[in-house]
């Protein structure tokens, strides 16, 4: 199998590590070779963060380069727009419509671009945009944005729902299990 590439992008603190952990658990049960590259340290402090998930028969590089991503899952709208160059021809962007202002926008040094979903679509990019924050709140916590988006991503893979649920069980603490399962299903149906 040719290596598949998933980029998870967002703002430091939005829970990309948990999302990549979930994917890793799932893919491991299928016997794939896997590499997941994470960001730790300074960039985690509210900066732009990117996690690479790659799987296939044999995976060498731990990172995804420009033009290689089959999927970009973005926890925040501006971050989806930042990484479009990394999308492969025919690839899909799954993005949250939530906007989080970066410091240059907060201080007034820059503008948060308007109508990014439409602009990405008119650039011939395949974009699936959902209000993951609303769905996460519906599930019981704004922090579940990551799992809502994983739920939506799951529509693109032929893994059984039970396999995803199993991976969620192995990745989140027991007391948040129901919340996360609900968030996942809301994202999958959105």
């Amino acid at each position, binding site marked *: 199998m040719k290596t598949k590439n998933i980029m998870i992008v967002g703002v430091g603190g939005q829970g990309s590590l948990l999302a990549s952990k979930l994917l890793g658990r799932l893919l491991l049960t299928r016997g794939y*070779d896997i*590499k997941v*590259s994470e960001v730790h340290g*300074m960039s985690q402090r509210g900066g*732009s963060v990117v996690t690479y998930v790659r799987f296939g028969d044999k995976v060498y590089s731990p990172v995804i380069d420009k033009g290689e991503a089959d999927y970009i899952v973005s926890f925040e709208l501006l971050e989806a727009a930042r990484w479009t160059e990394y999308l492969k021809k025919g690839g899909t962007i799954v993005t949250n419509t939530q906007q989080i202002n970066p410091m240059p*926008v907060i201080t007034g040094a820059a503008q948060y671009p308007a109508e990014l979903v439409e602009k990405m679509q008119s650039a011939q990019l395949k974009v699936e945009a959902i209000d993951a924050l609303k769905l996460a709140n519906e599930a019981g916590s704004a922090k579940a944005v990551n799992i809502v988006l994983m739920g939506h991503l799951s529509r693109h893979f032929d893994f059984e729902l039970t396999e995803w649920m199993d991976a969620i069980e192995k990745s989140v603490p027991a007391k948040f299990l129901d919340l996360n399962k609900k968030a996942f299903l809301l994202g999958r149906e959105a």
Partner: protein
Amino acid sequence: MKTLMLGNEAVARGLYEAGCDFVSSYPGTPSTEITEAIAKYKEVYAEWAPNEKVAMEAAFGACLAGRRSFCGMKHVGLNVAADPLFTIAYTGVNAGMVIGVADDAGMHSSQNEQDSRHYARAAKIPMLEPADSAEALHFAKLAYELSETFDTPVLLKMCTRVSHSQSVVELGERIEARKTYEKNPQKYIMMPGNAKKRHPFVEERTKKLTEWAENCEINRLEEGRDHAVGIITSSTAYQYVKEVLGDTYPVLKLGMIFPMPEKKIRDFAASVEKLIVVEELDSFIEAHCKNMGLTVSGKDIFPCIDEFSQNLVADKLQIEKDAAGIPLDEAIPARPPVMCAGCPHRGLFYTLAKNKITALGDIGCYTLGAVPPLGALDTTICMGASVSGLHGFTKALKGAADGKAVAVIGDSTFMHSGITGLVNVAYNESNATVIIVDNSITGMTGHQQNPTTGFNLKGDPATKIDLETLCRAVGIRRVRVVDPYDLKQTEDAIKEELAANEPSVIISRRPCALLKYVKHNKPVSIDAAKCVGCKMCMKIGCPAISMEGGKAMIDTTLCTGCNVCTQLCKIGAMKKGEEA
């Protein structure tokens, strides 16, 4: 059993399986998780030391006692530990000793991009360089065998992309490998008479290790279809090369980066038409090839700056690859890291910037005080440099800087190497004001305990070093504590201490807002009818405050109710966040 592990977790697993009994480290991205992971194995004693030199010396003591030991650090940490490193190279070991060092090509979270491989050559210590988690686990175990067989500490060199990438590993069982200590002055007392006898041993050891490198399985040849080019590589550069080339050209993959084999490389060079070395950062393998008189390409094609990627390797080797995707024709604002909402450092930095005080900074979350709109820092060099730097700054200006400059250093960094600078301030009497930003944790690396927090690496209660007492003990008479959430108290203290005609320490104390035990207030609220849009509250660079339609707005999911902003609102449009 097969499982996914971070490179750092895989090193920890390797240490565990090899029967390592003692670990002492200082946290530093990207090395931190090795020690955090090993602490979870109850069979292994693990600790955070105050700094890397102490950690390495402790690990040496443990290996002397007959227990396999480890110390871990980031690349710049190895500079701190370089003193014991060069002499432990002479004494060798009793039980095995492994030193983990993690480089940060691309400077994801570092102040420089130094290449630690030079230390292996300089200190004459073998260095292994894994390229993924499976190798990290394997090499950690192998490192102990080499350490004991060749009587040497062994360097295990990681880098960000190996440390922080998860890949599949196979787990094994733990073995026991203990020895007893026997007094041996000729081996362990490195006074000139003995050291003179040990130096030839070191040179002979490197020769023996070079022979080992000729035949070991970790320096492996991977055949290719086309011998027009042959590539020598290691670490992540190997992964990028294989990603791009597959089995097109033969590849000599080096797992031991010092000492390197000679015959193996010569034979490889003779089997190909053109020899290319692909390595991140400096010329190291390439320099070795050139020393052997081989014609080789390397840094004439590849940069010595930043990390590599598959596209870079393809481009430099002129290999066709998928085109880049579509960039959006839109100005995308940058998203730099910022101080968190509720960060106790914010109030302090606002006060320093407001009073236009020169602030020599240090290493930690508070380096973010340099970022606009605060822009409150003047320097960042290395651990502890704020205090010693301020001493030089004030002394050199013979009083002209008095009252205008401070040092800003975190609690963990102060314990690491700020205290020696403060001793100098007291002893040589500079009129320096040192601000210790005590957030009760080592923040930037992800909340590690340190000697001032009252807890140890395993989370158990531990002796808590009292910063006030410590500062007084070295001779600072003016020591006071402020709450950085209280802007007036903070400003008054800074002004008074700067005005005083003797050295002083201000401890700006408030635990990190991200600590689990820290209770947040309800969020600040804004009376839109009163807000005139003066943007005073925007001066502190809080990610929870923004302007919407000319009025300040609070992101209630981020706001912790620290109420620093409410103290800036002169017209009373901001309502304090009360206790939740």
